[in-house]
């Protein structure tokens, strides 16, 4: 079984010497070692970026994916807080390029805000999913700078509201563990919302609850590498009791369907067993 990981930040800041093509080779080397078939690259997503910074990040994603398109796919990051035409132009440019198969939204603008309309309209037009950050985060332990960074955050009830506003859009709520059981309940009745399994450490029980509340067909594997490790994030899925078909849906089939991904010939992945 060769999983598809939809949530990877390639960390160019940590390896500034690597070109997009160099990063692609490094990523595919890791994927071969770990047994991953394909990975979704999210690019540079820190909040508050201007249009030039967003473009640079998406340029890097495009260069990375274009070097190994049979193993990598890109998600176009945008900041909906920027001027609407700039957001639309960036989305049109990227989503008409084969490197990009989705959109990534992070912490810039709460997703109930009307400034998301342009993003969701383009997602529907290009028929690509939107991977949106979500977390019921405690602010008490955060310093002033970290709190400020969270000012535009979305929680899973916000994601549910967005999904109801755009029922034709497909939304992936990132960080199952961050939203927890409350978050799963928020989106349970929204058939156009999927959940990615990333977030924090592999706490037991949350994935089992997700299987019960929304079913395996709406759960997608994501690691949040490089901030998180493949070991812990894959261990969450491999170590949770569930039928083999459910595990394959989460690790492979749901991502392939959501992002219209090609088949990758199977190769040995003994390291994860």
């Amino acid at each position: 079984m060769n999983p598809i990981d939809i949530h990877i930040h390639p960390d160019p800041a940590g390896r500034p010497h690597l070109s997009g093509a160099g990063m692609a080779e490094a990523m595919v080397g890791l994927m071969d070692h770990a047994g991953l078939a394909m990975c979704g690259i999210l690019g540079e997503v820190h909040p508050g970026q201007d249009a030039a910074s967003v473009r640079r990040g998406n340029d890097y994603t495009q260069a990375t994916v274009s070097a190994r398109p049979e193993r990598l796919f890109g998600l176009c990051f945008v900041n909906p807080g920027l001027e609407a035409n700039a957001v639309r132009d960036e989305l049109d440019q990227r989503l008409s390029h084969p490197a990009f198969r989705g959109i990534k939204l992070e912490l810039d603008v709460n997703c109930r805000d009307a400034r998301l309309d342009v993003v969701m309209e383009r997602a529907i037009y290009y028929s690509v999913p939107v991977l949106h950050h979500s977390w019921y985060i405690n602010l008490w332990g955060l310093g002033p700078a970290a709190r400020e960074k969270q000012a535009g955050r979305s929680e899973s009830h916000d994601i549910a509201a967005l999904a109801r506003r755009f029922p034709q859009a497909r939304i992936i709520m990132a960080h199952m563990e961050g939203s927890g059981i409350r978050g799963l309940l928020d989106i349970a009745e929204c058939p156009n919302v999927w959940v990615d399994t990333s977030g924090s450490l592999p706490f037991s029980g949350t994935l089992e609850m997700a299987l019960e509340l929304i079913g395996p067909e709406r759960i997608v594997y994501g690691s949040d590498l490089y901030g998180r490790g493949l070991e812990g994030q894959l261990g969450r899925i491999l170590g949770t009791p569930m039928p083999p078909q459910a595990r394959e849906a989460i690790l492979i089939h749901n991502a392939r369907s959501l992002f219209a991904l090609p088949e990758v010939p199977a190769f040995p992945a003994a390291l994860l067993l």
Partner: protein
Amino acid sequence: MNFTDVNAAAGFWPTQHFSFRTVEALDAALARAGIATAWVSAVESILYPFPEWHDHRLFEALGNFPRLRPVRTVNPLLANWEASCRKDLARTPLAALKLFPGYHGYSLGEPAVAELCQFAGEAGLPLLVALRVNDERNQPTCMQVAPVPATELAALSRAHPQTRFIALCAMGRELPTLAEGGPNLLSDISFLDGADTLARAAAAFPAERLVFGSHAPFLIPHAAKLKVGPLSSLPEATRQAIACGNL
């Protein structure tokens, strides 16, 4: 590869839906993950004001599971902690003593802790110090517990060189501080994370002081096993030592 898990527990926690809710289920999950021996404390003793009550019931249950070794939870603020521990030592083959300073409301600098360190050193029992039990970002609003400062544990280990300490649930960012503790301070791997988890940890903390801990049933034990597996870039001998040899 043989695994000795220094950070396991059994029981009920009010804000988490454990996958493994009985001793039998925990034993089976650890067996599936290939863990040969696990040091197990009672989950309820973290919150209950009289830890030995739950500990003793757990110890009875563990008698049927040779894989699982009993761990006493100790609150050094309780008047009877020493007498109670001495009684247990005489009748139960304890693997270690476990502390939850954040939940029991004390600093590691308090005099009662020094007495406990002395006791544990003389008894030859490691002191397991839980820096946290969950991710502070996700704690319920009604139960927000700050982590135990790694600086306090590093200082405690230097002050009590005859006692062996194991930090449980340390995050990667706390390892450099823990590394400043004495050679008698070890850390488990349960909360370590990031790409190539153990290699990253070994860059911040001596690999020979890292030990295997799953933090089951809070965390999924299979995930801890994978950290020590061949996905890691650390040499096999180093990984084997972390799995059980460093204890």
